[in-house]
């Protein structure tokens, strides 16, 4: 599925005329003693979708608001197409923004909401309502123009907010938790719609989320922020399979993180007296205390493997195509293992092997 979508996007992207790119250059923002954004830099080229991901209070929303112009950085620059726009007020930036709670004007109809950006630009009434109508149609709300905001469902509100941001033909699209107010089923389908729509628009798009599945599903690249600092920026695979630090490894995906011996380009892990050598994604090098990151899908159940780590199944969770087991070794370490072998039950003893190498190595913080 992703593969298919991926190819689609490639094609669509090549069709759009390249506009400018959005860049944040060494942005810092303090609130009193608290450093909300700490020396963050990144660039979003035209047509790319970048997700800012992080726990609440990590500074991701502040970063987005600085990009939009609602906050001014204490230091650093915001650049569009190479031009410094740091001190340009939001109304002059021409960026489209979708707010977390959508911020739809409750005293206006759907059509008036969508047409508002054109009204602010002095576009005549008939013309702006026509344009609003066509953008509404593109988000699947052909007949919604005369409706009141209160009569919309959450998903419809989200689409109106998107239409309102798109109607001004924004140079950059910014979204604050665009999916957080949707129920899980709707969320799934909206992700795909959003991704293809954003690629059709073909401008730099930046969105904030605390949900990594949203980020994985929508974004081309992901920037992980913690305590105001940019930990890593890259594709979902980069962050998942080649985490730059323990913080990234812990935040992205599920993992059992264990201390390891440094053997140059290999590492060794000993569990319950069984020592295993593993290929690592990068040399542990000068790390003082290297840790291996064992993802559930990199482990496999091996009931009678002789050199497997031995343990007891303490929990079993069925996930559709596979089962996720939590296996406790004799020294108390719990390994999370995803396996197509569904036969084990809680209380069974089993062996666990590493089925996918190389494994990521990070430094203890």
């Amino acid at each position: 599925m992703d593969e298919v979508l991926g190819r689609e996007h490639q094609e669509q992207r090549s069709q759009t005329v390249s506009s400018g790119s959005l860049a944040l250059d060494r942005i810092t923002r303090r609130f009193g003693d608290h450093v909300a954004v700490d020396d963050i830099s990144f660039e979003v080229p035209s047509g790319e979708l970048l997700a800012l991901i992080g726990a609440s209070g990590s500074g991701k929303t502040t970063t987005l608001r600085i990009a939009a112009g609602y906050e001014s950085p204490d230091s650093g620059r915001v650049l569009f197409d190479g031009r410094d726009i740091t001190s340009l007020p939001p109304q002059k930036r021409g960026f489209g923004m979708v707010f977390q709670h959508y911020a739809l004007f409750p005293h206006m109809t759907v059509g008036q909401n969508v047409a508002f950006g054109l009204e602010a630009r002095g576009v005549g009434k008939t013309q702006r309502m026509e344009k609003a109508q066509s953008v509404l149609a593109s988000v699947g709300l052909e007949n919604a123009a005369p409706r009141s905001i209160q009569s919309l469902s959450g998903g419809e509100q989200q689409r109106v907010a998107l239409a309102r941001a798109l109607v001004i033909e924004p140079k950059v699209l910014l979204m604050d938790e665009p999916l957080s107010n949707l129920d899980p089923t709707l969320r799934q389908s909206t992700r795909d719609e959003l991704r293809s729509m954003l690629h059709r628009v073909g401008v730099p798009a930046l969105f904030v989320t605390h949900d990594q599945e949203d980020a994985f599903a929508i974004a081309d690249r992901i920037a992980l922020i913690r305590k105001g600092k940019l930990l890593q920026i890259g594709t979902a695979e980069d962050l998942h399979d080649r985490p730059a630090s323990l913080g990234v490894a812990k935040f992205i995906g599920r993992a059992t993180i264990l201390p390891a011996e440094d053997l140059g380009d290999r590492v060794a892990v000993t569990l319950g007296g069984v020592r295993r050598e593993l290929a690592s994604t990068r040399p542990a090098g000068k790390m003082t205390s290297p840790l291996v990151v064992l993802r559930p899908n990199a482990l496999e159940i091996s009931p009678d493997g002789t050199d497997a780590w031995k343990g007891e199944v303490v929990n079993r969770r069925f996930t559709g195509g596979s089962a996720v087991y939590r296996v406790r070794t004799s020294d108390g370490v719990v390994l999370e293992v995803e396996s197509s072998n569904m036969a084990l039950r809680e209380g069974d003893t089993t062996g666990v092997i590493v089925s996918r190498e190389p494994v990521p190595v990070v430094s203890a913080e």
Partner: protein
Amino acid sequence: MKRGEGRRSWIIAAPVLALLLWSIVYPNVAVIAGSFENGLGHWREFMASPTDREALRTSIVISLASVVASVIIGVPLAFLLSRFEFPGRRILKGVATLPAALPPLVGVIAFLFLYGESGLVTRAIQHLFAMKEAPWRLTGVWAIIFVHAYTMYVYVFLFVSAGLDRFDTTLDEAASGLGASSWQRLKRVTLPLLTPALAGSMLLVFMTSLGSFSAPYVFGGGIRVLSTQIVASKLNGEMGLAYVETTVLALSAVAGLLLFRWLEGKRKYTSSGKGAATRKVIRSRNAQVLAAVLAIATVIVLVLPHLMVVLVSFARDGAWTTQVLPPQYTLDNYRRLITEASLWKPIMNSIWMSAIATAANVVVCFVAAYLIVMRKFTGRRLLEILTALPWAIPATAIALGLAATFNRNDVASLRVLLVGTFWILPFAYFVRNIPLVSTAVESSLRQMDASLEDAARGLGASWWLTMRRVILPAARPGLVAGALLAAVTAIGEFVASVVLYTHANRPISLEILAQLRQLAFGTAAAYSVLLILLVLGMTLTARSFEERIA
């Protein structure tokens, strides 16, 4: 709705509905019926009287002008205080609501002492520019509007400030992100969303001015308004005419109600976003100085009436004639209030009558609010209308209705003799304050999760335990706030009192008026200070009670 709940609700609702119908609706029906007691005779009399026609016109002109003046002062002040940060902001915010703390008559006499012909400011200007006569006279329509603007802009200020606090600032941000200029944002987003708050406060100002009695009574000069005409007709024994005037006053109030409700529009909006409003800091040096100077000037204008009343309360009666400031000071005024039985009586009267009325309000309005918010039954809408009705009836009209109804014992027509007794005033205060207390309790109860009552009952709690441990605690903030407002309003009440009082139950406000008539300014001011202190004391008690419990 569970079976039988409707019937059980009715058992509680019936007595409350009966009480409200008897005390609110019946008297007003009696007034309207009274206006037709000789067919259209009294109405023809009213139509033929030039003074009555003029009074109606003046009442409406003054009320609308008071609304305009209050909006002109209240709206910019609310915007300034909630959207900007400047030197002097905190102190200005602290005193911005002070005028509302002045009991109606006290505000009027403070203005008399300050801006009246022999007032402090008038005299000071007269001396400064060596004028032969006072630069202005504080009489007529403009004087009344001036006093109204000072005391009533607070409603607009409070409503609009609350609206701005609730305002979802992301809407403003969304508009600016879409390219709207500040002016476009104000016109298309901020003001439309503040309209309900603005219209609500305008209605309140309109109603209060329409029923206002003290300012026209003291400064009116030759000016006649409906409320003073009603009292005059009653004193002349022309009850039929008084009924017509009262009906006309009430109809004007209804017209105002419809006008402002129409302005408010049908829709009320609730916004879900977080409105973390950040105040714009005024940075330019010149603007800072200007803001500070204006803020301090405003603070002085707002505080001056209070200070003046305090100052005059120490002035020896009769000594202050042509001087700018009273020449002699004494503690005598206060000593006399406490030691002379006839001067002490009104103080005790006011305290007792306010306490009785407030206690009745708390009980009746709590039950009414509980039924309105927590129960579903067929009479609910009626109950809602009845508890709000006294808002829409000017106080003079309420008083006259009571005077017309409870003037004799007649069980067959449900009449009880209250006029001429002590009880008529607490009863009038009770009726006037029903909307105030009900609204406060309702808003507290509405914040409570409706399923809490079900949850408590589901856990096996009896009706009484649920009431005591779940519902009363939820209603408490509203009960305390409502009771405080009711007690404060009742203790300084003037408009209904002047229609219904007798010598034995005269409240402080009427004693102040009596002292003013004898030109005993010092004593009148001492009463006013005492009234302010009582209000302050009650407010602090209520606040510390709330803090101790919460």
